[in-house]
């Protein structure tokens, strides 16, 4: 079936930018600067509190009309919508994991005369990332499924090709949609495996008293 390469491209790009946004927003929400904190809270709540499909339509149809900013391609709009949305969710994981590293770790690092930045880089962050891995895996699987939405802004992903097939032969609908389900599941398998792996890694090497 065609369209798999589109689905995978959107997934990979969304994942990269999603994690990037998650780290940036998560760290900003822990910042001591109230303006930075306020701005990121605003971003997170807006993107968590509204529908992904509507965000997608905003980026693809509404924003170019209102502000004359053309995102150039539906790929960019799709990736941006998915990664901004999931980045908002995952920023909470980043923030929560950093806060969950036991206070004793930071105190021990202070006792070794590390600076604030060294404490974060050498002690807190490596442990927090281990805690993030299983949840990050879960969201990766969710992102895979969310990529199907890009068919709505005219991208030729699996779902789009499925719909084309179905419209040429309406009686084929059950077979076509079953096939699409199977394809998504097959693509999700390595991600499920990755998530398990993440869980195993995160089990060792974190102190949270």
């Amino acid at each position, binding site marked *: 079936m065609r369209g798999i390469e589109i689905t995978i491209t959107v997934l990979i790009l969304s994942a990269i930018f999603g994690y990037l946004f998650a780290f940036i927003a998560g760290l900003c929400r822990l910042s001591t600067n109230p303006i930075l904190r306020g701005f990121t809270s605003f971003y997170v709540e807006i993107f968590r509190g509204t529908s992904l499909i509507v965000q997608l339509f905003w980026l693809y149809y509404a924003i170019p009309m209102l502000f004359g900013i053309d995102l150039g391609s539906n790929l960019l709009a799709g990736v941006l919508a998915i990664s901004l949305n999931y980045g908002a969710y995952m920023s909470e994981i980043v923030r929560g994991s950093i806060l969950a590293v036991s206070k*004793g770790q930071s105190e*021990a690092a202070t006792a070794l005369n*590390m600076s*604030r930045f060294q404490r974060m880089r050498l002690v807190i962050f490596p442990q927090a990332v281990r805690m993030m891995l299983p949840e990050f895996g879960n969201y990766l699987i969710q992102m895979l499924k969310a990529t199907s939405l890009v068919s709505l802004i005219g991208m030729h992903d699996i779902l789009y090709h499925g719909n084309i097939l179905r419209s040429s032969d309406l009686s084929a609908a059950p077979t076509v949609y079953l096939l699409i389900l199977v394809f998504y599941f097959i693509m999700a398998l390595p991600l499920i495996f990755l998530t398990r792996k993440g869980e195993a890694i995160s089990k060792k090497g974190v102190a949270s008293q």
Partner: protein
Amino acid sequence: MSESVVTKEHSQDTQTENKDVIVSYKNITKSFGDVEVLKGINLDIKPAEKVALIGPSGSGKTTIIRMLMTLEQPTSGEIIVDGKNLWHMEKNGDLVPANEKHLREVRGDIGMVFQHFNLFPHMTILENCMTAPIHVQKEDKASAKERSIEMLKKVGLGDKLDNYPSQLSGGQKQRVAMARALVMRPKIMLFDEVTSALDPELVGEVLEVIRDIAKEGEMAMVLVTHEMEFALDIADRVIFLDNGVIAEEGTPSEVLEHSDNERLQQFLHRFRS
């Protein structure tokens, strides 16, 4: 902290401090919310002196050493470390609250061992020891590694270098924590109830290491402890804290055997029964 800015005279006063004192607490108070935990502590510690802090729980023993390690900020008063004001620095002739750079300069000679070890779980035993010398003291990697191995051998863990903390017993973890603090070559070592979280049969091996360190002599040591026999054995001075003040101090035998302070007697009685 409203009373953070104090007069300059105070600071010059401390610059001409007696050279025989490495740490000096001057009228330190500390409140947590409405609770005043320390009500004016004055305490001088000499280089290489071994001081044991004892007292009922909640008497503020741990808070005293945590303030010296910069983990807790005093509500008022000054702490002078090696002639330098720890919590305040001079700026345009005024004393202002210390920034991180100043804290790092002054606390560099202080090391601490914690009740719950606080080893870094994502690093091997060896990495736990060599990370700070490399990143904080900018020592070259080979020499930091060599000194760390040497120190771990000294605490009896030379065969565990590549193990992770989760693979060790409590007593072994605490010995790693001591090695980690010692490779930083502190002039002052703080021990915060380091045997309290250990199974009784593991206490001995940890006290043994502390005894060895104490014998070498050159470091000042402040121990918050419930091990009275041990305090009697290695301390030069025992301080009994009660209700946020120093209620009794003196040599171990003066305090633990010959004091007639009633609260102290009650406290010791509970330990011996």
